C-alpha cells in the first residue's frame, strides 16, 4: 500500500520535483485546459440562454394549459384523420400530445439550463483510504460481540440452534415449488379427456359440426380443396350450459379436408377417412397452438406459432419445425342421414406432450 504514490502533482514545481524522484513512472497529465462557454464570458449570451430556458418552461406550461382545455372542450366522440395513423379519436391524440410535450419541454429546458448556465468547471476529488482506523474497527467488533452477549446466544444454545433450523427450513418451500412443478401433475386424466369421446354422447357416434355455426356437415359438402373447421356435436352442451366452452374447444378443434384419394400414402389414414375426406386434430403436438394454415396446393398444414409443418397426405407427419409427433387423426364415417360422424374418439391424447402421456 505504502509504496503507491497517492498524491497527485497539481502545480508545475511539484511536477518537476516528482519527475526527479521517479523517472520510471508515467506522469499524471492532469486536466485539459478548461474552455469557457459563451454564457460564461458574455453576459448577453448568458441572458440569451436564460431566456431560452424560460421559453422552454413556458412552452411546457402552454402544453399543460392545452391539456386542461382539451380535456373539457373536445367531445368524447369526435374523430379526425391523422396521416399515417388513420381515423383517430381527437381527444386521445390531443391529450397525449399535449401531456407529452409538457413533460418534454420541462426535460429539455432543464438539460439546456444545466449545459449552458450551471457551472461546468472540472473538480478533482481525491480518493480516501477505505480502511477505518484501528480504534473504530475494535469498537465495531466490540459492539457486535456485546450484542451477542446481551442476546444470551452463548448462554442459551437452544435458541441459537432452533433459529438456525427455522431459517434453514424456510428455504425449502422455494426449492419445493420449482422441484414440485417438474413432477407428476395432479389430474393427468383431465389432459387425456376430450369431448370427442363417445361417452359424452351416450356411446353414439358424434356428428362433426361447423365452427362457429354448429351445423352438421354432409359428405357432399366437402369439395376438393376446401377446409372445414370442425367442433363436435357434444360442444353444444357446453355452449348451452355456458360452462367450460373454451376449455373443451381447446382440445376438440378439428380440421376437415378433402384430398384426392390417390394422394393419400398411408392405409390407416385412408381407412379412417371417407372418400379422401380426412379429419385431424388442429392442436399442434409441439405446444398446442391451432394448426390452421392449410396450403391447398402443397397439402401442408402449417402451425403459425413455431412453423411446424405437417404433411397431410402422409398422415400429417412432421416435415419441418419443432413438433415431434404427427397430428392425431379422428376416424370419421357417414351416418344414416348422410352427415359426417366420428364413430370413436381420438385414440391418443391431443396436443403437446406431458409427463403421464404413455408415448
Amino acid at each position, binding site marked *: 500500500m505504502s509504496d503507491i504514490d497517492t498524491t497527485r502533482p497539481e502545480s508545475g514545481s511539484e511536477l518537476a520535483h516528482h519527475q526527479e524522484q521517479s523517472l520510471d513512472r508515467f506522469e499524471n497529465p492532469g486536466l485539459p485546459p478548461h474552455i469557457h462557454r459563451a454564457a460564461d464570458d458574455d453576459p448577453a449570451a448568458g441572458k440569451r440562454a436564460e431566456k431560452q430556458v424560460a421559453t422552454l418552461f413556458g412552452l411546457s406550461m402552454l402544453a399543460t394549459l392545452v391539456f386542461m382545455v382539451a380535456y373539457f372542450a373536445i367531445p368524447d366522440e369526435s374523430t379526425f384523420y391523422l396521416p399515417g395513423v388513420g381515423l383517430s379519436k381527437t381527444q386521445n391524440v390531443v391529450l397525449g400530445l399535449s401531456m407529452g410535450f409538457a413533460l418534454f419541454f420541462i426535460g429539455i429546458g432543464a438539460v439546456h439550463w444545466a449545459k449552458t448556465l450551471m457551472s461546468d468547471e472540472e473538480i478533482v476529488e481525491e480518493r480516501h483510504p477505505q480502511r477505518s482506523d484501528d480504534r473504530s474497527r475494535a469498537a465495531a467488533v466490540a459492539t457486535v460481540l456485546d450484542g451477542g452477549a446481551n442476546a444470551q446466544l452463548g448462554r442459551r444454545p437452544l435458541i441459537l440452534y432452533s433459529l438456525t433450523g427455522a431459517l434453514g427450513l424456510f428455504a425449502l418451500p422455494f426449492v419445493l415449488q420449482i422441484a414440485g412443478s417438474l413432477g407428476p401433475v395432479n389430474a393427468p386424466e383431465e389432459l387425456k379427456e376430450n369431448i370427442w369421446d363417445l361417452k359424452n354422447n351416450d356411446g353414439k357416434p358424434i356428428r362433426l359440426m361447423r365452427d362457429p*355455426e354448429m351445423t352438421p356437415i354432409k359428405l357432399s359438402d366437402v*369439395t376438393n380443396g376446401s377446409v372445414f373447421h370442425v367442433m363436435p356435436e357434444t360442444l353444444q352442451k357446453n355452449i348451452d350450459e355456458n360452462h367450460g366452452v373454451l376449455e373443451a374447444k381447446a382440445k376438440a378443434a378439428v380440421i376437415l379436408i378433402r384430398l384426392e384419394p390417390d394422394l393419400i400414402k398411408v392405409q390407416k389414414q385412408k381407412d379412417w377417412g371417407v372418400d379422401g375426406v380426412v379429419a385431424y386434430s388442429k392442436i399442434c403436438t409441439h405446444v398446442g397452438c391451432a394448426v390452421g394454415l392449410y396450403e*391447398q*396446393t402443397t397439402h401442408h398444414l402449417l402451425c403459425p406459432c413455431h412453423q411446424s409443418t405437417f404433411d397431410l397426405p402422409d398422415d400429417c407427419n412432421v416435415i419441418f419445425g419443432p413438433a415431434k409427433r404427427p397430428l392425431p387423426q379422428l376416424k370419421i364415417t357417414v351416418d344414416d342421414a348422410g352427415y359426417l360422424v366420428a364413430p370413436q374418439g381420438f385414440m391418443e391424447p391431443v396436443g403437446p406432450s406431458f409427463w403421464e402421456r404413455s408415448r
Partner: protein
Amino acid sequence: MKALAARRRHPAAIAVLILLGLLVTGGAYSFLAPKQAQATSVTADSVATGKKLFLANCASCHGLNAQGTASGPSLVGVGAASVDFQVGTGRMPLAGPAVQAPQNKVKFDEEQISALAAYVATLGPGPAVPDGEYTTPIVPGDEKAAGQSLTNSERIARGGEIFRVNCAMCHNFAGAGGALTRGKYAPALTGVTPTHIYEAMVTGPQSMPVFNDTNITPAGKQEVISYLDAIDNQTNVGGMTLGNLGPVSEGLFAWIFLLGLMIASAVWLGKKAA
C-alpha cells in the same frame, strides 16, 4: 438560402433529410398508388371477344384451349369468378415466375375482364361472378334485414367470428396478411373490393383453400366481408397500428426509433454547450 447553407453541416441535418425523404416518398406513393378496379357482371355475347383476348394474352401458358400446359394450370371449370379475381386484382397475367403470383397493375378494363370471364365460363361449370346481393357490406345498426334473426351490427360481429375461425390464421386477425411456407404468403385484405374477397373465398386462389357455399353460406360470406369493411373503416383509438403485425413490427419500431431517440438524447446530453 444563406440560413440553409449555414445549417447544412448541423449534426441533425442528415436525420432531418432522411425523415423528409421518407415523408415525401410515402406521401407520393399514397397519392399515386394504383386503385382497385371494380369488376362488373358478365354480358352474354362477349365470349368471342373473350376468346380473342385469351388467345392473345393467356394461351401461351394455359394452352390454346385453356387445357393447361407445364407452365400454367387448366382453366376448365375454374369459373368466371376465378378469372375476375385473378385478372381483376392484377395477379394475371403473371408478372413473372415466382412461388406465388404477386399483385401487378391491372392490365385489362372491366369490359375485357368480363369478356375473358365469359369465355372461361363456357369451358366448364364453375363459380360465377357474384352479383351485388352478398357483396354489399352490411351497414352497422340495430335494424334487422328481412329474414335475419340478428341485427345488422350483430351480423357483422358474427362475420368477425367466422373470420377468426376460418381466415385469421393466415390473413391475421385484422386482415393484415401473413407468411406461409417457402416464400408464399397470405396477402393483406385491406382495400380489397368485396367482390374480389367473395371470389377468393369461392375459388380458393393459389395456396388458399376453397370456402364453398356449403362451408360458409353466402350470407356468412357477406358477414365476413362486412366485418373486413368495418375494421377497415373503424376509428383507431390506440394510435399507430404499425400494420397490426404484433410484436415483430412493434419491437422493430421500439428498437430502431425509440432506441435511436435515446441514443440521440444521450449524445446531446454529453455534448458541451457552445
